[in-house]
């Protein structure tokens, strides 16, 4: 499955979709596939500052806990509350199941992230190891 081209990606398998100074963040379809059945998400509250490259929450499948890494710095403005009771939505459609919305601290940080094509290549290389 191709990754949406209107998003940027991290090597930790988050996607970020920016619109001006605002962006939504989630995990990729590849991430949900490797995690398996997602049963729990732990997300920050609105108003919390997140920092590029630092963890901002976690996602748990039946067998494991994985940290979520902030693709860029910013402030959380909204949290997808639906995921608290229905985390399986991430398995069903990872690219529409956004986790948090943020206002960007520095939109130029987006330039250092992977494009859909680069991310796809990265995933393919990682899988080939």
């Amino acid at each position, binding site marked *: 499955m191709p990754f949406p081209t209107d998003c940027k990606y991290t090597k930790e398998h988050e996607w970020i979709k920016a619109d001006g100074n605002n962006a939504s963040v989630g995990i990729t379809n590849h991430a949900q*596939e*490797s995690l*398996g*059945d997602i*049963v*729990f998400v*732990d997300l920050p509250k609105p108003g919390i500052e997140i920092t590029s490259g630092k963890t901002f929450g*976690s996602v*748990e*499948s*039946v*067998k494991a*806990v994985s940290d979520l890494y902030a693709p860029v710095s910013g402030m959380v403005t909204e949290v997808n509350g639906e995921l*608290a009771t229905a985390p399986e939505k991430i398995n069903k459609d990872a690219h529409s199941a956004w986790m948090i919305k943020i206002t960007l601290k520095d939109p130029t940080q987006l330039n250092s992230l992977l494009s859909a094509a680069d991310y796809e290549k990265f995933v393919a290389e990682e899988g080939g190891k």
Partner: protein
Amino acid sequence: MGAKMVEFNGWKMPVEYPSAGGIVAEHNAVRTGVGIFDVSHMGDIRLAGPEALAAVQHISMNDASRLAIGQAQYSALLYPEGTFVDDVVVHRLGEGEYLLVINAGTREKDFSWVTDHTRQFNCAVENLSDDFTQIAIQGPKAANVLQKLTDADLSAVKFYWVTRGTVCGLKNTLIARTGYTGEDGFEIYVPSDEATSARVWSEILEAGKEFGVVPCGLGARNTLRLEAKLPLYGHEISDTINVWEAGLGRFCKMEKPDFIGRASLEKARAQGIRRGLVGLEMTDRGIARDGYKVLDADGRDVGYVTSGSPAPFLKKNIALAYVPTELAALGTELKVEIRGQGVKAQVVPTPFYKKPKKT
């Protein structure tokens, strides 16, 4: 097969089969239908000879003299300290012939231990681990599936008994009504060459189609055994945990002739047991995981989680943990430290899951 593989004690093992729907679907198939597991990593030690019973009695805590031919029992090999070398299932296959089924991670250690501590007995000890592939067929419909593939009358085999029969054309195959899932089911022992085990595996899948059989990985095996409170070596039992602490006293027969570990257990019992294994259910949002700290209501560090996971069938977040005995009473409010936060949990009855009685 499309399995997601992981390294487990040096074995490449299937952790889940995404094509089967993943861990939750695999787990629930075993609770309500049937699933099959490739558990060829398990080890097998055969003791045979005129003094095989005496040897088994010496190295294991349950009373093997109570076994009829064809019967099996849960037991453990103990260190002189009363702690665990491993837990085992002892099968009595014949007059003076016993088969010990042991864990993957402890195979070499177990075999050396059994060999070293049975030298004084007139019996041969053989490591058959590489000779057999063990396949587990588990769930309320396990008997329906396996019966299609064997001439042995499975209805005559009770839980924790074994029989022999032709399975998938393989004569004299050992069939045990045992498992590690908390369900009815069977474990069969077939020759370990790849062609044979692959053929048997696909024949079971084929025969099980009408019953909705699902291939299951280590992930589901772990959640199933946790719901049923079946111990896992290195978690609930280890070389630093004794039989009483682990709550396995009912499988330890102090009245049988002397065995390794008995003296220490006698002493430990007289001194009083200071910690015990309890079942926890998370009452606040959060999942306890292996190794997480257990806190008392005031936030003091009092114990640790040995196994923790979401329970796919019960749809709760459960854990097994060691806590001081004064905090082990049912209903006790505790906390589990999850990423720096004390998340509420309660001591609940175990096993978390018990298979329904047959009507």
